[in-house]
């Protein structure tokens, strides 16, 4: 598991809020993404697509052992070596061993959230391997020594000027801040890395159980490079990312690309079925698939199972008003936004990420766009319950108990209101409360509180109509 930065979500978010350019950059990007999504699905029955997507994912996850087994069998038939990794250390260990055995030192990497989850780059770096991220956004954040800030737009939080300064500093270049110039600068650097690489490591969007094929979508073409040029290709596959057969992709692919980037289809859709055949002139001599559990199987038997239906489109991040203010770094782990707020506590435990389910105003925008109808906001509420059961402070527990006791009867409800009305006389200034004791002090630090009305509605009603 990659190490979590210290501090709470609130601390990290607070630090990011101090940099208004972050929210501005993310906001602009997210608006484009949200518009793209609504445009791309406008000509289709998106609700029918989502329902089908949900059914396909639910079916697959409920039958996962069967499909994993079929995938491994089929992959084996065309020479793909499949390794089942129970956890991060097994997965990393296997990758290291393959690289060692094949003498691979120069590694090019395609986008893989699983590799972030495994902390793979750091592990390989400590072995002396030279690991280069090749998705442009990933390359930028790697140069900046940062984790990705968004699933599909890793450098979403950075401006062109920051990226120019970074390139000029790290690559010894003198390039303008034009996105085209910056992109082509990266193209030149990365082209040499691709041609010199010993091994390519990529993620996988879908594994096809029927044929043992790997399906990878990209727009830049880096996955084509990573899987075509080096002698060795290692693919990291979250164990839940299977489809029974190609057929289901007819719905899942457009759901993925439409939700992720507002595209009808990506520039490249790679379908990989093993190492190169003897008669083929190029392609890797070895193809490995590492099927990663790393905490996923523990979710299978729980009420959160549907979180494993996720196809990592990032749409929930694009519409999340909390994510919009601070980006993925505030969440402190691999997955940010609503998907991260659900997944991280489940994969990493409440000790590590128990505060994330509260990193949501429960506005339901995430659930509304999820291409496979995961009830994200309901999972957040349930997780808050589970976290509270073991980790709520005594004060919080007492507050809610007391509140439940007093407000479960109209008479005691009335008493609390009367007491509060008396108490607020000390606090109210010209019809507002500018400062209040804890925990309401957290509200009044940035906003005024309204005082309770002198006469509540129920008293007005009684006065007007009797009881």
């Amino acid at each position: 598991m990659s190490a979590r930065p210290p501090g709470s979500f609130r601390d990290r978010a607070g630090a990011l809020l101090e940099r208004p350019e972050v929210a501005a950059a993310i906001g602009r990007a997210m608006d484009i993404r949200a518009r793209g999504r609504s445009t791309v699905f406008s000509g289709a029955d998106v609700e029918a697509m989502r329902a089908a997507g949900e059914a396909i994912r639910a079916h697959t996850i409920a039958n996962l052992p069967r499909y994993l087994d079929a995938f491994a069998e089929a992959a084996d038939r065309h020479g793909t070596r499949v390794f089942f990794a129970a956890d991060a250390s097994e997965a990393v260990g296997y990758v290291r061993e393959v690289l060692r055995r094949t003498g691979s030192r120069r590694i090019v990497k395609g986008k893989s959230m699983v590799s972030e989850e495994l902390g793979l780059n750091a592990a390989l770096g400590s072995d002396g391997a030279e690991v280069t991220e090749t998705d442009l956004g990933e390359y930028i954040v790697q140069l900046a020594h940062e984790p990705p800030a968004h699933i599909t737009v890793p450098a979403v939080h950075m401006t062109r000027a920051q990226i120019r300064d970074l390139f000029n500093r790290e690559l010894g270049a003198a390039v303008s801040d034009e996105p085209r110039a910056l992109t082509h600068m990266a193209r030149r650097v990365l082209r040499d890395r691709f041609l010199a690489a010993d091994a390519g490591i990529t993620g996988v969007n879908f594994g096809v159980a029927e044929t043992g094929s790997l399906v990878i979508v990209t727009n830049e073409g880096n996955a084509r490079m990573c899987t075509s040029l080096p002698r060795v290709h290692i693919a990291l596959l979250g164990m839940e990312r299977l489809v029974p057969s190609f057929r289901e992709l007819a719905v899942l692919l457009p759901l993925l690309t439409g939700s992720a980037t507002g595209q009808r289809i990506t520039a490249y859709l790679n379908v990989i079925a093993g190492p190169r055949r003897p008669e083929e002139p190029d392609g890797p001599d070895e193809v490995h698939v590492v099927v990663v559990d790393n905490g996923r199987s523990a979710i299978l038997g729980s009420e959160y199972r549907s979180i494993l239906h996720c196809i990592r489109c990032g749409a929930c991040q694009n519409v999340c008003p909390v994510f919009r203010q601070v980006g993925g770094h505030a969440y402190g782990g691999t997955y940010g936004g609503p998907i991260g707020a659900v997944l991280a506590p489940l994969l990493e435990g409440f000790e590590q990420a128990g505060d994330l389910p509260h990193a949501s105003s429960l506005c339901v925008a995430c659930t509304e766009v999820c291409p496979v109808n995961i009830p994200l906001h309901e999972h957040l509420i349930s997780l808050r319950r589970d976290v509270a059961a073991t980790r709520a402070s005594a004060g919080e527990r007492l507050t809610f108990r007391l509140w439940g006791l007093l407000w479960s009867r109209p008479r005691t409800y009335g008493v609390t209101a009367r007491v509060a009305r008396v108490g607020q006389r000390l606090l109210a200034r010209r019809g507002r409360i500018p400062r209040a004791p804890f925990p309401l002090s957290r509200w009044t630090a940035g906003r005024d509180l309204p005082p309770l009305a002198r006469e509540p509605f129920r008293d007005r009603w009684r006065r007007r109509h009797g009881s």
Partner: protein
Amino acid sequence: MDRSAFLDRVRTRLAGTIAPDLPGELPRTMVSGDGRGFDRFAEELAALGGEARSVSPDELEEAVKAAAEGCTRAVLGADLGPYADRVAGGLAAAGCAVLEPGREGAAAADLGVTGAVFGVAATGSVLLSSGPGAPRTTGLLPERHLAILPRDRLLPGLEELIGRLPAATGSASQMVLVTGPSRTSDIEMTPVLGVHGPEHVIVLMVGG
């Protein structure tokens, strides 16, 4: 972990889960076919910054010459079938030298010419397949990619293509569906073409 232990763990955790059936019929999507053939194909590809032309076999040589304009070194796939001679003729007419295919040749070339197993009208895509004489690098490394698509290989939508993938996947270790130029919007969401793959994609659909 060995496979059976891994799967046993998954099976144990899933115990008692009721599995819904796969949906019998899948809904149409925005990449389903609409009955329009090449016109749709050309529209979609143009919208992405690529270009497509429909030509007769007799027009092919001239069309290849036009597509190769400005290029000096080309690599050719061996998957051009009956059109190989006309493509070679077009390149010669454009003054474009033909390099040995493979990594070195493709890295030095500014034009890669490939065949296409299928085309998809609804998306403007072509399916490339690795195979004997058809290195993956031909359509990948040069800045310009010219694909020759036989007319009878144009399919209406993504569903039809996907229906043909299982059969095609048996023989080739890699297939790639190419839809327009390589692109990114990773810097301030500004679209830029030509990141790692070709910046220019031209498809010539050939048929009687």
